[in-house]
């Protein structure tokens, strides 16, 4: 990392870095082969068939269908291999594993604000343990940013008004760059930071030294009281609004019989744009909390709602596959899962 020698690769510090580099090397070889082939042929022809006198005449070439088909099909075949390879890496990159440790990241002009589950907060730094799957849930307070760690070979746009995710498993301790990779205004190039990948024991120590006052969900609970949410969203369901106990990750029936999944985005939308989706059978009386709660506060509220949600997952933000569900169920299948019988203990809080 500190070596000053010229390198052509960033360090491989995540579980996918090696696979991305392999595909890259494969492509470099393909490109070198075709570039040299074309350059070699052109130079060879240019010399061999150079015009020696004005009377020099070319031999006509008869375009061959077979030749044309050959040099269409071979590149097509090669490019489909590249496509499949690249897509399979992408598929891995876009699906955070169920056991991921969750961290919330908020971008704003021009800094990164990080909240850990345990309550630690940091700015332009991200401390994580080596060897754990880490899932970042990202959002922005203003413009579009992009959270990029070259050593992990991954990035994701950070879009205002929605949650995006990015995950990686660091494989090497050390300090790595965080770059904002989507142009975001004057100090775009100053929106940088550092990831510190630590041994788990060091990470645990770091967590305890942070002086955090309560976990995210505890702070979310405090906000829940403070903003008065609790007066309507009563735990026993007798309030004027639906109870939030056991809600997280479950399907919710809203107006006109539509069903939505109560994930982090839904909770966020309901806090900031309460009229957008009204739960069936309830009056649209909730005021908006725009301007009263920050993006980070919303994240704490989401964690609180999650903490009083069904105890069937290890606490992933987007609904994660229940360990009891059988068969393959990526994506929508598990989003509709209404498995109430799960008994897994929540992750360490």
């Amino acid at each position, binding site marked *: 990392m500190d070596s000053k020698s010229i390198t052509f690769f960033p360090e491989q510090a995540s579980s996918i870095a090696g696979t991305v580099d392999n595909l890259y090397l494969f492509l470099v070889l393909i490109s070198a082969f075709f570039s040299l082939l074309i350059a070699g042929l052109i130079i060879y022809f240019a010399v061999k*068939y150079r015009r020696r006198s004005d009377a020099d005449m070319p031999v006509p070439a008869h375009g061959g269908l077979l030749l044309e088909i050959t040099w269409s099909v071979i590149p097509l075949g090669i490019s489909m291999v590249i496509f499949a390879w690249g897509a399979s890496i992408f598929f891995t990159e876009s699906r955070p594993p169920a056991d991921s440790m969750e961290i919330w990241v908020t971008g704003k002009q021009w800094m990164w604000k990080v909240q850990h589950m345990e309550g630690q907060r940091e700015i332009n730094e991200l401390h994580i343990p080596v060897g754990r799957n880490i899932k970042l849930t990202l959002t922005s307070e203003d413009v579009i940013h992009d959270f990029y760690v070259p050593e992990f070979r991954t990035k994701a746009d950070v879009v205002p008004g929605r949650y995006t995710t990015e995950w990686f498993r660091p494989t090497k301790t050390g300090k790595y760059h965080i770059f904002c*990779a989507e142009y975001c205004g004057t100090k775009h190039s100053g929106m940088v930071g550092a990831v510190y990948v630590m041994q788990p024991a060091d990470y645990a120590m770091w967590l305890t030294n942070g002086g955090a006052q309560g976990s995210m969900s505890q702070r979310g609970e405090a906000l829940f009281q403070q903003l008065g949410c609790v007066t309507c969203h009563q735990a026993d369901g007798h309030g004027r609004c639906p109870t939030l106990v056991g809600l997280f990750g479950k399907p919710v029936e809203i107006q006109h019989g539509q069903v939505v999944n109560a994930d982090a985005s839904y909770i966020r939308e309901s806090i900031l744009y309460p009229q957008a989706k009204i739960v069936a059978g309830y009056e649209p009386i909730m005021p908006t909390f725009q301007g009263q709660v920050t993006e980070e506060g919303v994240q704490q509220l989401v964690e609180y709602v999650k903490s009083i949600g069904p105890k069937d997952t290890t606490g992933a933000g987007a609904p994660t596959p229940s360990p009891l569900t059988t068969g393959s169920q990526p994506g929508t299948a598990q989003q509709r899962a209404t498995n109430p019988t799960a008994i897994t203990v929540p992750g360490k809080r």
Partner: protein
Amino acid sequence: MITATPTQHEPKNYINSDYGIKSWLLTQDHKRIAILYLIVVTAFFFLGGLFAVLIRIELATPAGDLVDSNVYNKLFTMHGIIMVFFFLIPSIPAILGNFLIPLMIGAKDLAFPKINLLSWYIYVAGGVFTLYALMRGGVDTGWTFYTPFSTSYSNSYVIATGLGIFINGFSAILTGLNFIVTIHRMRAPGMTWFRLPLFVWAHYATSMIQVLGTPVIAVTLLLLILERGLHIGIFDPALGGDPVLYQHLFWFYSHPAVYIMILPAMGVVSEIISCFCKKAPFGYSFIAFSSIAIAVFGFLVWGHHLFVSSQSVYAGMVFSMLSYLVAIPSAIKVFNWTSTMYKASVEMSTPMLYAIGFIGLFTIGGLTGLFVAALGIDVHVTDTYFVVAHFHYIMVGGAIMGFLGGIHFWWPKITGRMYADTWSKLSAIIIFVGFNLTFFPQFILGYLGMPRRYHVYPPEFQVFNVLSSAGASILGFGYLLPFCYLLYSLKFGPKAPANPWGAVGLEWQTSSPPISENFEVTPVVTQDAYQYSTREEVKVG
């Protein structure tokens, strides 16, 4: 048309047929309009190039020492806007296409000469708007104008610049419309579709994109201006809008726009290679149809700019796969050009040097396109210098090489003068070397993770940045050379014969420079394009 006797003893042509500034500014002659474009486009090229030089000087050191971040952001924004909208898009079509399409198909002019002149005025008006914004302090959004930064956060002249590009768009639309109608309706007797030069096919495909794509960017910029001016909420997440919708609309035009830049250059290269190999291009119909295929597929791949923008995983996969399909027609062209040289009679003239340079650089640009279309790699390299290097290999290495090659090829026809051969070959080589030194290190920088649009950067990236800046100084010098010796040739260059290269296109059968009506009598075409005499024919004869 004009009866005044010329003062010198030159035969009449489109240049000396009339005098005075009015005769130029009110001309309806496609050749004169091409010259008008040439002047303004060249001015914009050097303006955009000046910004590029400043950017490269700034990036020679990791700290921000030449200019501050605000200025730097405006520099790369104005560089992008001017180069894309005011140089690359009009360069080959509006200058060479305008001049040559009627000549190549044996017509007296484009179908709508007045609209052609109007296009130039619209282009100038759009340029004036943009320059006005530049003078007032410029714009700092990047040439992509991503929302919500451009609509709610930037404190620069977004509306004026947006209007400039909006207006300019109609120039491209009208030029494209004019070309399509001209190619359909104005061909000389006997000039069937499959006798058209490949340059014309390439411009037909280009015009299709201009006509179908440009209105979409126009309406997108209109919405952007409304959003910024009135906060209607259409791209603002705080008002329920979707900032990523802007990116879809923007790239629906701006990806095909890349093909507006490269297809005409491909047409130029097909002409040059054929002429200096003295034989028909290998696989004429494959080159012709691959242009059309590129234009069509080009409209289906915009989503590959949005792989990390929160677009769905499956959309990403579809766009990735479609992007590979665009690679095939491009590969077909490269293989066909190369095969044309097989058993040819190759003359290493200046245009041929540019054409060969084009093939090499376009090959690298195209092959690195395979990298960025691969989802797994794109997540790492998008928004880094890898992408910057990739598209400069296409746009500068491809489009500008094609443009310069074309200018050198048809310069005798356009001006009636020959330029200095030694100087022109030397500068072609300087440009090729300078280009590679500028942009090849940026591939490495990008893979190392240096994000684009960074004013200051970590010191470990400096080595390659210095290489790139050094290359840029060579490249900048290289671009000044043709400007000088071409200008010199206007006055002092030897007179060019009608057909200095021994080429067979219709444009070479009329005088250099051509007369106002292009041909003394409307030509009648009796054979395919590129009928060079070959050995067999000699034997038979």
